């Protein structure tokens, strides 16, 4: 146990606290205290991480700790972080924090909601601090199962269908993943399940051909890779606000992170040989997601498809296998996490007022709820890649990196993927134009009230970090630069 385990321990304590609370006030104070602690703790971790690197510690993972758990299977509870995980932990803390404020008035059964929400965050935090394949997989599955009840009970629309579809598809992904993990472990002849140790060994290439696609697809399902993205629109559209935020903002990043950290890092030869298949699939995700978003009229569906497109870009960039693109991929994970969480938060808030999410039934909302409206526009601009907001930095880096490949295949795919920026602009601007500007559709909307204080906290926090990432991306790229190299080094060896 070292201090990184606090990231798991705090939510566990939060759950205990929630269990003992009786009133909504107590529940909310437990959640806020926990979320603030997690935020502070990620800040401290960032500082310590930079200090460690400045002090000259060049190890791949720092703050590592290792405890034997199941000795017969060489399963250890081992933790450690590098720049990428630190970045992801910060992102998770931000979204958990804002998610609490976005679900301030959750109804019914607030206690159960926050319990499941905390369990979900345990899974996410645990995944990012693990360096052991087994613990990583365990946390991955812990993050999946609360989704069923969160969507099923507190969701909207065809929630039961969506919850079942999401759970089963993601479990399907994890089934592929488990075979992949067992293959990696037994194939490499390793005596440990620690990723860093396995990376030093060599898995026979013919085995890699089987287990790379399994592992990559397994994580790819969560990363909304075409054709396994179909859970995402339904799931995100039906989920309650905070869950959509956490799921689209962080959970989908588990997919990208896992592909990068497990599939490509441990099986570089197969990654080289088979990357083209997955490049095509993720390329389709990018463009298809954007096109699909144009045709939607439900705000949440628009954003869900846009998530498919943007998360596709993460996987796309990872598969380009060079440093610039990989850095861009991590930046895109952060940027998309913030933007999409903001979108879902705002959509949730607007839906809570208008009781509709169809853009055809809304119009001219900017006049009545100017705060939410302006924030929505900023989020939209961030999503379509306006400079000074986070999206620009990420996409720019990705495409510069992708264009470093000089062959026809990569060039064409890059250009096609670039076109998604234009399509994104189309649906974002149309959406904003229709329901924020436009003509008032429903006279009842005249009396809507603007954001409350807790909603403002949630929105402003997300906006702050979007601006921070967009205008000063160097501190993040400094942080992840050192950590992208080992994986890339493995790939170009």
């Amino acid at each position, binding site marked *: 146990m070292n201090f990184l385990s606090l990231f798991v321990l705090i939510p566990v304590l939060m759950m205990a606290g929630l269990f003992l609370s009786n009133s909504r006030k107590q529940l909310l104070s437990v959640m806020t205290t926990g979320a603030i602690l997690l935020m502070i703790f990620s800040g401290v971790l960032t500082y310590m991480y930079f200090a460690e690197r400045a002090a000259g510690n060049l190890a791949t993972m720092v703050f590592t700790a290792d405890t034997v758990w*199941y000795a017969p*299977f060489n399963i250890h509870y081992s933790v450690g972080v590098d720049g990428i995980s630190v970045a992801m932990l910060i992102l998770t803390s931000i979204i958990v924090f804002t998610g609490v404020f976005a679900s301030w008035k959750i109804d019914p059964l607030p206690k159960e909601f926050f319990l499941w929400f905390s369990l979900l965050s345990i899974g996410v935090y645990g995944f990012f601090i693990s360096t052991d394949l087994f613990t990583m997989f*365990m946390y991955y*599955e*812990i993050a999946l199962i609360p989704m069923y009840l969160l969507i099923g009970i507190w969701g909207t629309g065809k929630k039961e269908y969506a919850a079942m579809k999401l*759970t*089963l598809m993601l479990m399907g992904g994890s*089934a592929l993943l*488990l075979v992949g993990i067992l*293959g990696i472990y037994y194939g490499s002849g390793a005596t440990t399940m620690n990723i860093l140790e396995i990376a030093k060994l060599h898995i026979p290439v013919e085995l890699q051909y089987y287990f790379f696609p399994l592992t990559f697809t397994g994580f790819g399902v969560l990363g909304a890779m075409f054709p396994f993205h179909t859970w995402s629109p339904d799931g995100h559209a039906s989920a309650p606000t905070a869950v959509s935020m956490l799921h689209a903002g962080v959970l989908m990043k588990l997919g990208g992170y896992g592909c990068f950290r497990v599939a490509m890092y441990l099986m570089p030869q197969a990654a080289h040989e088979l990357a083209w298949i997955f490049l095509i699939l993720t390329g389709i995700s990018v463009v298809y997601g954007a096109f699909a978003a144009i045709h939607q009229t439900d705000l949440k569906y628009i954003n869900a498809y846009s998530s498919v497109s943007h998360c596709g870009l993460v996987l796309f960039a990872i598969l380009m296998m060079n440093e610039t693109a990989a850095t861009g991929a991590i930046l895109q994970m952060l940027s998309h996490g913030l933007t999409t969480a903001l979108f879902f938060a705002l959509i949730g808030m607007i839906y809570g007022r208008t009781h509709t999410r169809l853009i055809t039934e809304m119009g001219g909302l900017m006049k009545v709820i100017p705060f939410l409206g302006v924030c929505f526009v900023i989020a939209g601009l961030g999503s379509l890649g306006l400079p000074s907001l986070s999206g620009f930095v990420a996409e720019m880096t990705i495409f510069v990196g992708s264009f470093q490949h000089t062959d026809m295949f990569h060039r064409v795919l890059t250009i096609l993927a670039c076109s998604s920026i234009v399509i994104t602009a189309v649906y974002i601007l149309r959406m904003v134009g229709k329901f924020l500007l436009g003509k008032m559709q429903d006279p009842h909307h005249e009396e809507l009230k603007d954001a409350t204080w807790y909603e403002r906290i949630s929105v402003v926090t997300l906006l702050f970090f979007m601006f921070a990432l967009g205008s000063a991306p160097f501190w993040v790229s400094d942080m992840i630069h050192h950590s992208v190299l080992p994986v890339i080094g493995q790939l170009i060896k």
Partner: protein
Amino acid sequence: MDYSSFLQMREEFSLLGVMIFLLIYDIFAGEKGLKYFQPVALVLLTAHTIINCVPRDAFVIAGGMFHYVPVQTYVKSILNIGTLIVLLQAHKFLNEDANRIKRGEFYFLTLSTLLGMYFMISSGNFLMFFIGLETASIPMATLVAFDKYNRKSAEAGAKYILSAVFASSISVFGMSLIYGSTGTLYFTDLATLITGTPLQIMAFVFFVVGLFFKISLVPFHLWTADVYEGAQTNITSYLSVISKGSAVFVLFTLLVKVFGNLSNQWQPILYGMAIASITVANLFAIRQQNLKRFLAFSSISQAGYILLAIISGSAMGMASLVYYVLVYMFSNLAAFGVISIIEERTSKVRMDEYNGLYQTNPRLSFVMMLALFSLAGIPPFAGFFSKFFVFSAAAAHGYYVLVFVALLNTIISLYYYLLVIKAMFLNKNDNPIEVVKSDVAVKISLVVCTLGILLVGLFSTIYTQISALSFGF
């Protein structure tokens, strides 16, 4: 002959002592004394469980008839704990006026089956094995038909005894062929004498069917759903956990110890049966509305997963198997505990009657949810670990495709487990099951199961202990 060596069968004698004491107590105690029958029985059994939970050194007695190896202690302890939990859950049922008179028989029959399983587990000779098997089967049939004025229960009893007898007669036929081809029934001698002649293979197939029947693997599963549905719920849970748990253990030891030379023959058989059991049972489970039938099919598919541990034939497989049985016992008994208490109080067992259970009985729904998640293999519950170890044991021997098929099936199984969870938590119902009050005994049993589900996985000591003794099982 030195009879003192018999005293080494400590588990068997202590159980026999408890049984005989209870029998006499039941016959001779007056109205007043009988009030304490159940508490006394439970305390005695707990004492029996505790004094017999420490493994001893391996030994062979009775001229090779009785083989003891340390890992058997764990298996017997698991069976003991499971029986205790079942008896706790049956406490209220046996206190009812109609059943009070049959209470002694219930205990005596249950414990006789347990004794039979003990002998079956420790047998070193096919005759001994057969005696154990029958001692476990025949009282079992009586238990299934325990509620004899209930048509379904009587029918289930008849079904069970007919198919059980049929299966054991085929099994005995197999044994006779084994004797015919080798001239001995001792396991240690057979290990070398069985070389894979066609007659021996035929003998093996006939013999093993009897065990497949007990474990209720596809295609020998047809009795399961009807018997599970008809029998009193506590008997059903006993049947699904204890009877099955002992049989899989014996199957493993026999396959490796006696039929080790035939591994090229039995591995494909198990391979096919594992896939068939898991898949067929899963597909049938989806359509079940009666929760007892539902869990019957679920238990068939769980047995299929256990085959993945057996097929490896390794010490790791043995440890995974014992661990799997332990976890499966806690999860299944928790689920059956909830079903039995609700059936007892409200006589509702259909899934649609469980709609909205969470509104009225949050604790029971919660326990049920934990049990189902554990059965589905969701972390951080124990079922996740046991499934992972079983898969790992199979993957270590290169059965990746089998693991893959089994994993795809876990998705189907998750689907139907979620259906129950959906009914309890999501579905609305204007007229949900009323608030069910559970008595102390059931509460204790459910708390034990819940703790088992939550802690057995997270604390690795239990697995490490089992694993340490599994070498040279």
